[in-house]
């Protein structure tokens, strides 16, 4: 098992190295001079030369690459010229709303999808099963930003149940912040529940046709116990995988949803950075989010070892 963990760790390092390389290349494919693009048309040649030197763009591409890797190894994601602060600090400052939005949305998606998915599999072929499959497909077809706008209009503007936008004032309590996150989390959670629902149903269907479920029923165990203890426990592995995938989808969705609801999160920071061509921030955010995705997948692999005793690598 330790060998497997080490192998996975080595694989993760290789992937992260490639992720860093891709992030480095993305900015270098900018047509023209990135420094000139960042400073805009009013910049003087001296300003551009200064910024090129500051960003290290005046060095050869290989030197730039090794300097970038060295900088990252020291935990330095660069410096935002527009925010006039280190990218790491800017990301940390904006991480909280994105983190809670992702967790809150994932929780909403699970609350919707898990029971429906389990019930749909249990009542395979029934009206509820067919309806849930169709609704899952419908949910996956709705753009989260559109749903966010509709919820904002109906629930916040017309009925004044939730705040229209924002993340509460500077001194807002945790509950107040969650209250502000409810609508964006609902928009993201509803859309993301589709994938979890379909995987839960599929995974449960696989397990429900296994011999040990028949044996459990033959022993006279209560149906509730058969489904929730015997079947669900064994169906968890694919569900865990999809939860990891959904977390990545949610981070992605958060970029747009944060913009709709004016949440001061990483998504909003990235969109503003793109509009300002603040490349260090874009690079930093990409790197951190891709790194998180790789870590989540690694953590899920490790969770398999705990959840399923049959998994012995």
């Amino acid at each position, binding site marked *: 098992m330790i060998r497997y963990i080490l192998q996975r760790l080595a*694989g993760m390092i*290789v*992937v992260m190295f*490639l*992720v860093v*390389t*891709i*992030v480095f290349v*993305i*900015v270098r*494919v*900018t*047509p023209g001079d990135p420094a000139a693009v960042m400073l805009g048309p009013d910049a003087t040649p001296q300003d551009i030369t200064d910024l090129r030197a500051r960003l290290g763009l005046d060095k050869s591409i290989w030197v730039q690459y090794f300097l970038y890797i060295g900088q990252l190894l020291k935990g330095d994601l660069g410096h935002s010229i527009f925010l006039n602060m280190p990218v790491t600090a800017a990301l940390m400052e904006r991480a909280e709303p994105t983190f809670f939005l992702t967790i809150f949305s994932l929780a909403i998606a699970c609350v919707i999808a898990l029971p429906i998915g389990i019930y749909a599999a249990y009542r395979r072929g029934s009206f509820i099963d067919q309806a849930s499959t*169709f609704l899952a*497909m*419908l949910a*996956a*077809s*709705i*753009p989260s*930003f*559109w749903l966010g*706008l*509709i919820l*904002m*209009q109906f629930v916040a*503007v017309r009925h004044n149940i939730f705040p229209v936008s924002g993340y509460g004032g500077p001194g807002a309590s945790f509950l107040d912040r969650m209250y502000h996150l409810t609508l964006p989390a609902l928009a993201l959670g509803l859309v993301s529940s589709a994938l979890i629902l*379909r*995987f839960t*149903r*599929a995974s449960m*269907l*696989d397990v429900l046709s296994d011999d040990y479920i028949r044996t459990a029923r033959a022993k006279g165990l209560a149906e509730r116990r058969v489904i929730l203890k015997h079947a669900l426990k064994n169906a968890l592995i694919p569900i865990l995988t999809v939860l990891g995938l959904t977390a*990545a*989808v949610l*981070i*992605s*969705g958060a*970029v*747009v949803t944060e*913009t*709709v609801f004016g949440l001061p999160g990483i998504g909003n920071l*990235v*969109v503003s*950075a*793109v*509009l300002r*061509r603040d*490349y260090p921030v*874009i*690079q930093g*955010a*990409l790197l951190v*989010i*891709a*790194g998180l*995705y*790789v870590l989540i997948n690694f953590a899920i692999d490790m969770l398999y070892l705990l959840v399923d005793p049959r998994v012995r690598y």
Partner: protein
Amino acid sequence: MTDIANTPSLPAAESRFKFVHRLLKRKTVAFGVIVLTIFVLLAVLAPYIAPYSPSKLSIVNRLKPPGGTYWFGTDEFGRDVFSRTIYAARLSLLVGAAVVALSALIGVTLGLLAGFFRRLDTPIARLIDAMMAFPDILLAIALVAALGPSLTTVIVALSIVYAPRLARIVRASTLVIRELPYVEAAQSLGISTFHIMTRHVLRNLLSPILVQGTFLFASAMLAEAGLSFLGLGVSPEIPTWGTMIASGRQYIGQADWMTYFPGLAIILSVLSLQLVGDGLRDMLDPRLRKDL
């Protein structure tokens, strides 16, 4: 292990009619095909169907609610929302189709090379893993930021984002097909590797590519709408469903129809693509079905 050898490939010409007939017998697929056909017809015939020019300004008619004259109402410049929704279908469908074509070209090439040549397998597989570590829209945003927002950039960025998905599927299937007796037989007959890859391997991969392509089409349309909504896609003056929702957002309190109709168009078209993709998967690729 996947069993590509037993996967039904695309039907032969004589049975294509039967295949389409069986596919359309499914109500959900029939619904999807009908809706998609309507959208394609609306997009192609937009200049003949649209009652007004999508860019015709009429300040006196600004923010008119849906009614007899303006079926979907008007926007902040008095432009007809129905006409703009129809014209927007052109661009959304074009982006979807172009992204599928380009990502298939990149993804299938990478997948075939990785699956067929052992030396290339590890580097390409790791590259696919690394590309898939980026959330779709975020990578697309970064690429658009680097290349500058335009229609071409959106297509290129989304193709780069979605190509690894296809590459992964093609690679996995090629690894299995490579070991099959008919490939070995073709090799021993001295048939060139390129010929084996394109004629024998690729032909057997058309079903999963077609199924995945349908889902990619839907994802690309959603992503394009998201990028346009953020102002990172095409120019805001060009009607796409995303740009229409973005401009409707500012008037949602007074003219919510500006947001509803383009949103509903996205939902209907994406849902239809998913229904068709699901039906195709059930019939062409039972390995992937697993009662999903």
